[in-house]
């Protein structure tokens, strides 16, 4: 079964339905008697709600019901919970203000839901929403983090605009190290705010069954069990046994579909109120003002170095935007998924990071592909280039000199993490070779002849994924465990269904997981189905994010397979009249070691369900096993990305002309899927570096609120990628896998900006914030030219 097992580049099983338009997305589902919801949202960023009068709207044609925050609260229902508690420097809890499902008393960002109109058609709901009289007393808005901390700034919540002031690392040791430094490199940078923009907008259908008292929520989620837990326990008080959450085919998430959103609670709750199913489907422009955004950091960082350019200590101060409310995992992103990565791939002995999380009158900000690690990587890999410039050293040499050596693993960083494996010299060497780094100066000279500024940039990154050991994250404030669950059901004739608590929304689990089973049981891929996304089918699950599906979810599958094989061997031993210890599973057959006596897998499964000749005294009939796996550590993918750009000095346009990625993602199950994941991540990373940015004006209005102004990367913005893997195995999971979903988005942005800075070096540029737009680059060149002329 080598052709279909681990390491085989088999085509994705799910693609037939996706490519032929036969996917089944939430909006494709229609329930009998279904109504449609439209959410009336705030058009202003900050206001007191003086009055919401729905009387006229309620009389409009087709209207079934209208609810406001007052109705929701009157029903005793709660607000949206936050899943992570971060502590302040002094040990006190972060400020955790209420996050109403429908606004109560105040609106705090453009898009904040004020009322829901439920009508026979979507158009009727929209028509009626225009008749709702909303009297808002507008308040001054806090549009930026700088405004949020100004003395006398308008308070978004009663407790003010600071969510927490947190730190990590040894401050005293850090200051001592800086005192002894030969040189210090400094940088101020912004990690630009992004809008996730999954291809499928969010949608939700609430369906309450009056006969059984059961609720069903169909939703675009990356983690239906988490939604069931959060919404059932904290918002609507529905026991799990009466709440089913289904996340069918989901068209991309990138983090934005992890969180429990207001609309899910609204349609579920209201379906019981009106006694009919309710569908809500987000429109694209609505998604810009209702999906959690990503990134949005402002940082200052300094690296102390000795006379040889060795890193002595790093200190970082970061302000992280939370938006107006705390989204589900928001507090964890700029802390435990960010500051813990600031050692990077280097032996920096001391790191001290201070992070303030601030509220502003903007959309909530939460994890977005990479979640904290791209922010850490961008800061560090930009700073390392500045270090090289400060020391007058080569960019490669300073990296090599500070790399954690390949023989130093397991390696304990000063910021909590223990890396299990990696070889940064090796991934660097391969990337240098694949990118023809040595030949760059000739390419730069050739570009100059064509009037173009060519630059090359490098990023040697690490990230942490496969989240996460439950006890560890619990001690850090997580209000959930982060294990995963798998159930393997072998059917009587030997076909297999894998039920996984992870969720696939582009990752290709139906193929990769099936390959794990094919590899182990030796049965063909076509006999294996993977089922996910339904809390009534799957025992439990924590879902898909943080590149955890294989390292955690895949390991749970392996553990369940262990149990299956173990039991099957006992059955085989009985049938073959041998001892279980003598049974081997080889090429889909159970063989008595050293003999030609064998039983096919299908014969064993049949015996398990038709137990006529069966060890019934010691073995139960049936062949189905469940395993929960709690990971022992994070996994640590890393690698090297090299970007080459050409800049047109007359217009400021940057073109990525070459991109080389060498990633260590641990063992590769399906190389084609791995390559695809890296491609997608690179597109998003290059998008962040050159194109994408979410802009609010000083009143908190979204200026980049549609594709007219928010620049999504397109195919012609990207070069043909040169992607390779060079692996070391993860040492603490049986597959040796690390994760691949986010590496592209994490490693690439600094490689791009380092290349842009390199291209502009004749203008004395040390840093340029993302996105490096044509206007920004032309501004640098133009002032440089003017200065040169003076």
């Amino acid at each position: 079964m080598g052709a279909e097992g681990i390491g085989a580049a088999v085509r994705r099983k799910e693609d037939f339905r996706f490519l032929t338009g036969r996917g089944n997305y939430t909006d494709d589902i229609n329930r009998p008697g279904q109504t449609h919801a439209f959410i009336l949202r705030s058009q202003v960023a900050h206001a007191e709600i003086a009055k919401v009068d729905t009387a006229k709207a309620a009389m409009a044609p087709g209207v079934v019901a209208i609810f406001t925050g007052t109705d929701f609260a009157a029903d005793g229902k709660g607000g949206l919970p936050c899943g992570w508690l971060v502590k302040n420097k002094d040990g006190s809890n972060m400020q955790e203000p209420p996050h109403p499902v429908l606004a109560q008393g105040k609106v705090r960002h453009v898009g904040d839901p004020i009322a829901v109109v439920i009508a026979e058609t979507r158009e009727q709901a929209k028509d009626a929403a225009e008749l709702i009289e909303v009297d808002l007393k507008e308040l001054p808005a806090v549009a930026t983090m700088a405004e949020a901390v100004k003395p006398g700034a308008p308070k978004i919540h009663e407790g003010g605009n600071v969510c927490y002031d947190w730190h990590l690392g040894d401050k005293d040791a850090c200051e001592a190290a800086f005192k002894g430094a030969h040189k210090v490199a400094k940088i101020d940078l912004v990690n630009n705010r992004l809008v996730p923009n999954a291809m499928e907008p969010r949608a939700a259908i609430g369906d309450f069954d009056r006969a059984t008292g059961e609720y069903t929520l169909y939703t675009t989620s990356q983690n239906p069990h988490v939604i069931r837990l959060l919404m059932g326990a904290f918002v609507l008080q529905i026991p799990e046994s009466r709440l089913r959450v289904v996340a069918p085919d989901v068209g991309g998430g990138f983090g934005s579909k992890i969180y429990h959103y207001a609309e899910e609670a609204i349609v579920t709750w209201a379906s019981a109120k009106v006694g009919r199913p309710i569908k809500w489907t987000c429109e694209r422009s609505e998604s810009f003002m209702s999906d959690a955004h990503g990134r949005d950091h402002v940082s200052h960082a300094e690296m102390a170095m000795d006379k040889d350019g060795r890193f002595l200590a790093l200190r970082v101060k970061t302000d992280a935007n939370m938006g107006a409310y705390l989204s589900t995992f928001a507090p964890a992103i700029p802390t435990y998924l960010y500051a813990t990565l600031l050692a990077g791939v280097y032996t920096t002995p001391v790191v001290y990071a201070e992070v303030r999380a601030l509220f502003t009158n903007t959309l909530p900000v939460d994890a977005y592909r990479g979640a904290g690690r791209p922010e850490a990587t961008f800061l560090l890999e930009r700073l390392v280039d500045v270090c090289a410039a400060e020391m007058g050293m080569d960019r490669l040499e300073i990296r090599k000199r500070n790399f954690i050596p390949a023989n130093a693993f397991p390696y304990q960083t000063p910021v909590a993490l223990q890396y299990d494996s990696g070889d940064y010299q090796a991934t660097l060497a391969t990337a240098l070779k694949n990118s023809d780094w040595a030949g760059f100066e000739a390419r730069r000279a050739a570009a100059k002849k064509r009037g173009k500024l060519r630059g090359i940039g490098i990023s040697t990154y690490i990230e942490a994924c496969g989240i996460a050991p439950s006890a560890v994250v619990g001690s850090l404030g997580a209000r959930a465990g982060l294990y995963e669950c798998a159930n393997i059901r072998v059917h009587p004739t030997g076909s297999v269904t894998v039920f996984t608590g992870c969720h696939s929304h582009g990752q290709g689990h139906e193929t990769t997981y099936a390959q794990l089973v094919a590899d182990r049981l030796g049965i063909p891929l076509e006999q294996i189905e993977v089922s996910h996304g339904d809390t009534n089918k799957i025992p439990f699950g924590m879902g898909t994010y943080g590149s955890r599906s294989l390292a955690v979810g895949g390991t749970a599958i392996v553990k369940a397979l262990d149990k299956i094989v173990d039991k099957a061997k006992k059955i085989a031993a009985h049938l073959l009249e041998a001892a279980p210890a003598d049974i081997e599973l080889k090429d889909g057959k159970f063989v008595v070691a050293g003999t030609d006596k064998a039983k096919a897998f299908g014969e064993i499964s049949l015996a398990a369900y038709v137990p006529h000749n069966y060890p019934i005294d010691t073995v139960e009939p049936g062949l189905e096993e469940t395993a929960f796996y709690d990971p022992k550590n994070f996994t640590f993918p890393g690698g090297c990305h090299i970007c080459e750009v050409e800049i047109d000095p007359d217009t400021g346009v940057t073109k990525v002309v070459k991109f080389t990625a060498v990633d260590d993602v641990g063992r590769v199950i399906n190389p084609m899927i791995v390559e695809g994941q890296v491609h997608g991540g690179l597109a998003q990373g290059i998008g962040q570096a050159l194109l994408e940015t979410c802009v609010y004006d000083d009143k908190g209005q979204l200026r980049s609120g549609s594709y007219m102004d928010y620049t999504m990367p397109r195919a012609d913005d990207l070069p043909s990628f040169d992607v390779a893997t060079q692996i070391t195995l993860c040492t603490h999971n049986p597959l040796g896998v690390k994760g691949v979903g986010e590496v592209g988005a994490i490693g690439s942005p600094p490689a791009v900006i380092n290349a842009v800075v390199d291209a502009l070096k004749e203008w004395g540029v040390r840093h340029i914030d993302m996105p490096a737009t044509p206007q920004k680059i032309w501004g640098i060149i133009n002032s440089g030219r003017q200065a040169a002329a003076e």
Partner: protein
Amino acid sequence: MYEFAYHKPASIADAAKLLAADGDAKAMAGGQTLIPTLKQRLAKPSAVVDLSGVKELGGISVGGGKVTIGAMTRHADVAASADVKKALPALAALAGGIGDPAVRNRGTIGGSIANNDPAADYPAACLGLGATIKTDKREIPADAFFKGMFETALEPGELIVAVTFPVPEKAAYMKFDQPASRYALVGVFVAKTATGARVAVTGAGSSVFRWKDAEAALSKTWSAAALDGVKASAAGLNADIHGSAEYRAHLIGVMAKRAVEKA
């Protein structure tokens, strides 16, 4: 979108009658601006008069030093027309660079210029070539047609029938895409005609306009170098998150030179 009546007349006369009878009715050509506007509930016409059934509004004719494009001719048809490519390649290239394939297969020249989006491409060709816009009532020179942002010389209910472009000695259009929308952040159409050079700029201002200083320089010497000392003024130009007025002014110069080189 809000509810509206839908009419699909078969003749210019019927279309004009429908529009005359109802001041809140809106004519629809390709619908590439109108439909999104309706979907966003930014317009509430009582009726939409769909011109796609009016055969008299279609067609391309080339001859006598002129290229005439019927108002309902789709961008993709202009881009693909062998006659246009031969007689006025700059126009075919411009049409082939509007929007994306979906837009080009629905959008029309009449719809584009009647809408007069400040970042649309066709107005630059009309003004840059000194086209004549023929309506169901009269003929309007391009210089008198584009009045301001989304404003034209068209009277209520007046329909564009065709646009006639004189064939120049040389012409070219260069567009700098707004990165997100890929409308023209700045688009410059240059033409060398018997009566001198014409330079029309779109995207940069509130409406398409002629860059007279560049025309004077190019009328003297038709070369990119002739524009070396000519600077477009930033005064009154558009500014947004993608480009300040100064950046747009700079790009006008760059695109004009590149257009001259390409012509």
